[in-house]
């Protein structure tokens, strides 16, 4: 089994990707009551490429409204700390991994769309609750796939192909062939990199949301959002088309079936936003 080999290697990955250092520091700062726009601006400016991308995304239709944002300072003030933190973290991941076999664009369109849909589902539910981690958790839910592709490309290529050819659940094939799933791998590495607990929880449990301890509602939102994105035809690259989700998870979220037509309509919007985000903030 490959499980031990994978766990060992994950353990040995020491270096935090540069951009991630910045993004995590932004995240920490945003929670600090003594923070300021200038402090965050100063941090992001450490990386010109990151700065440029944050600005581009901030200026996209999704975030900027009609007035053009001319500086990082303006972006932070206009969008707010939370939004800037989320955008910075997302851009970081878009630029951190070098896909070997995975289709970069397909993967990220799937992931970012899932993030946006999860946010929308929360808004459409009858008890819209603060879902802080849902956007980031949605975008990163399949990060284990990229990690496995990056560090275990040859082995993983076969797994990925089997899942795609037979229209089978990727996690099941991974469990059978590798002894470990992309959900576990993603959670392990991101936990090592000290991402917030709620995010790693979502990543670990996005196929089994009821197992989530610290972020169950967010995980359930991502679970359904993942289904919706896949149903729309944008899977994570495996070609997996889902035929069912667990009804009780939908009901737990207090989602009415009356909003289904609205969701289906809105998916087109979310897809557009995802494409835009990737184009402006990605490689």
């Amino acid at each position, binding site marked *: 089994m490959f499980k031990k080999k994978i766990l060992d290697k994950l353990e040995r990955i020491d270096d935090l990707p540069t951009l991630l250092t910045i993004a995590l520091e932004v995240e920490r700062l945003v929670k600090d009551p003594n923070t300021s726009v200038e402090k965050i601006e100063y941090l992001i400016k450490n990386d010109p490429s990151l700065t440029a991308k944050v600005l581009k995304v901030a200026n996209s239709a999704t975030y900027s409204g009609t007035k053009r944002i001319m500086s990082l300072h303006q972006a932070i003030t206009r969008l707010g700390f939370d939004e800037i933190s989320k955008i910075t973290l997302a851009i970081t991941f878009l630029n951190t991994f070098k896909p070997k076999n995975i289709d970069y664009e397909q993967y990220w369109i799937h992931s970012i769309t899932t993030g946006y849909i999860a946010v929308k589902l929360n808004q459409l539910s009858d008890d819209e609750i603060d879902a802080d981690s849902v956007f980031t958790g949605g975008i990163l839910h399949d990060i284990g796939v990229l990690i496995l592709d990056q560090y275990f490309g040859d082995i993983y290529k076969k797994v990925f192909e089997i899942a795609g050819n037979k229209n089978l659940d990727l996690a099941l094939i991974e469990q059978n062939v590798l002894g470990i799933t992309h959900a576990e791998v993603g959670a392990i590495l991101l936990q090592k990199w000290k991402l917030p607990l709620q995010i790693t929880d979502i990543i670990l449990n996005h196929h089994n949301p009821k197992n989530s301890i610290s972020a169950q509602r967010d995980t359930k939102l991502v679970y359904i959002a993942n289904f919706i994105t896949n149903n729309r*035809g944008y899977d994570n690259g495996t070609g997996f*088309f889902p035929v069912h989700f667990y009804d009780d998870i939908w009901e737990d979220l207090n989602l009415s079936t009356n909003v289904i037509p609205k969701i289906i309509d809105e998916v087109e919007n979310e897809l557009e936003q995802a494409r835009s985000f990737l184009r402006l903030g990605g490689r």
Partner: protein
Amino acid sequence: MLDSQISISLEEFFLFRNYVHQEYGIALKDEEITQIGSRLTRLMLESKSTNFKDFYLKAKNDATNKLKDGIIDTITSVETDWFRDTNPWLFFRDKILPNFIDDLRNKRRENVVIWSAGASTGQEPYSIAMLVDETVKKEPKINSKQFFILATDISPSSLYIANSGRYSEISMKNEMLKAYKSKYFEKTDKIYEIKNEIKKMIYFMKFNLLNNMDDLPTFDVIFCRNVATHFSLDMKIKLYEKLAEKLDSKGMLFIGKDESLNSYSNDFERFEYQESSFYRLRKIDV
């Protein structure tokens, strides 16, 4: 000699469900236990299995994959199918619809109200809509809007899939569907999506058949096929009682090929037409 139906215990069902999930990534729902049992009977008989456990072991060790393929086919067709059982649909298309068209043309009625009760993932209501559209298109003076199709189910998951109208290649393998595929579906990669004009013909709604039906309209045709199989005796009696109240005096009720109403209701009379059957309200002699 084996019984005509091998029943499957809960334990065996769970065993089978795990196996199917492990092997094929397919998640069987709790409610499918009865259907699975009867569906697998044929395969079990063919493989000369004396009981379910025997069958399960044969399937696990099947090197030719023939048995495995048979299982996959059986399981994926447990979900509602397109034009299920064919004959009732031919009857609907060749006799019932033309009669309605005639009524509409001669202004004997304004519209036709159809209910797909227990519509699951949408194949049944879309089957209805395709046939209506095909028939109506031949009539210049009739509009498909004169046909109101209500499709209800209790499952959000099924309703989502039905609303999206998107189906994988595996679930498109029906014989009668072949003639309608290119006309009514758009294909992207391995996914078929039913065309918008057909989607628009159906009103999808969450509805529990155990609930009060007072707010529903009166229907000219009700499809309630293979839904009541999961219900208890009591529930079945109540269901058919309510359906009788919702059916127009000249309306038709279609139930599943292997189902029967007789033990549960006196309100209906059974009619047969070329290997398909349907029910009408029994006329009361005053």
